[in-house]
């Protein structure tokens, strides 16, 4: 299967900020022949995300990057749904389909909410990046995050079959999410450095993105535990929700236990 991402012409100049001397300088994308190799199919996209992130960044800057972005969306969607099934296996029943839907939707909505601010931040820092390129990097962030979550899925499954504590399972998923997000943000950071040299305001954006995702996990609750309703109407800040889970989790446990 081919991605239809056209190979850049041989004489295409290397992409990226001008490589200046010094420790912080970046090798321009395309300098290495490895960067120019095409990315074939879903498996190729996953492999490139993990092993050759520069190749992904190079192809995102190519004129027809839409198909690669589409592949990354598919990877992120598929992986988040699979991980969602593992999350849902803790409570079983309707959570087998509700948790995957909520996790996938939550991730994409969070990314879309934060995309405009990243684009504006990027533009204000002097970058000439197109919205499509920034979108590609954000989809790359999601794809890498969810690929890593799939890696953690067997561990999460073992724990979800052993424990009945929502607080413990929620904490474990948060740890996995934090690790996956770290690597995803690292990809985004490298990508933005190639786009704009020094991405100003990225730290602020990362903070906003993390807060949005954490609040999203509370807004679309329950993801780990069970409920009669798909979504709850009660508005709650995520920290308050967590505190309640830790304080009252022990007492409320029996109603959430698997049958």
């Amino acid at each position, binding site marked *: 299967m081919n991605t239809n991402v056209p190979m850049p012409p041989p004489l295409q100049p290397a992409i990226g900020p001008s490589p200046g001397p010094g420790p912080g300088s970046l090798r321009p994308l395309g300098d290495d022949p490895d960067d120019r190799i095409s990315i074939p199919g879903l498996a190729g996209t996953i492999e490139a995300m993990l092993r050759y992130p520069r190749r992904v960044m190079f192809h995102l800057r190519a004129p027809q990057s839409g198909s690669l972005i589409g592949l990354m969306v598919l990877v992120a969607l598929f992986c988040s749904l699979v991980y969602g099934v593992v999350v849902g296996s803790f409570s079983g029943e309707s959570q087998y389909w509700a948790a995957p839907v909520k996790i996938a939707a939550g991730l994409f909505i969070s990314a879309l909410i934060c995309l405009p601010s990243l684009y504006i931040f990027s533009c204000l820092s002097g970058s000439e990046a197109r919205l499509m390129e920034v979108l590609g990097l954000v989809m790359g962030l999601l794809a890498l995050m969810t690929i890593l979550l799939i890696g953690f899925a067997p561990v999460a499954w073992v724990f979800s079959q052993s424990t009945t504590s929502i607080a*413990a399972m929620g904490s474990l998923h948060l740890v996995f999410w934090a690790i996956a997000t770290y690597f995803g943000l690292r990809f985004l950071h490298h990508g933005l450095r190639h786009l704009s040299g020094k991405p100003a305001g990225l730290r602020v954006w990362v903070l906003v993105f993390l807060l949005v995702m954490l609040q999203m996990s509370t807004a679309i609750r329950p993801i780990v535990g069970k409920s009669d309703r798909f979504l709850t109407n009660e508005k709650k800040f995520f920290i308050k929700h967590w505190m309640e889970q830790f304080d009252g989790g022990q007492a409320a446990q029996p109603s959430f236990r698997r049958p």
Partner: protein
Amino acid sequence: MIVSVSAVIGRLRSVSSGIAPWDLSDHRRAIPTAIAIVVLGAGTYGAVMGAWREPLQALFTGLKLPLVILLTTLGNTLINAMLAPLLGLHLSLRQSLTAVLFTFALAASLLGSLVPVAIFIVWNLPPLTTTTQLGSFEYSMIQLVLVAFIAGCGVAGNVLFLPVLERQSGSRRVARRVLLCWLLVNLLLGSQITWVLRPFIWDPARPVEFVGPEYLRGSFYETVFNAVRQLILEQLPLHRP
């Protein structure tokens, strides 16, 4: 397939000197050999641990200890293979699986070499009787010494494998980072699998059984967390209602 002991030792020696298992002449046998070393080394050691209670526990622990290692390796195959390239070490899925298996194989071979010492310790301690309690000296001693051996061998196994990762990555920093991440991830899953497959030595509340029904409930980390929480709350009686 019969593999001579000297061939196995030779392979472990090559690995500990920095030659990757997949670079050896008979690299196709690397994974089966590593599994065989784990089963034999950790299995024998486990049998000695369980022998303090009774022969059936020896059999069960002899099976469970290698099972913990193999299930941990299997469960973490994907994430270990993903973490390595992300941290700068380009290994294939098969190579990272072989690498993790060999760190355990090195640890298991060390454990196997300590079997005579473990037998000596078990033989010298007072046997399990109806008066033995969880707080008894002999039980505490057997737990402490035998688990310390496992921890020590685990660390040594990883240190011995470090040259392979260094040679593969060309950087000591990257090799250490990858090995540390693998260790953490293996510790996370390994401790839970160990928790599920307990007891390895003795449980006064249950007869000898491979996996009891109640062992599948709860998690290692929850228990530790609750114990710490209880300990802190007991230290602050004034804050209680």
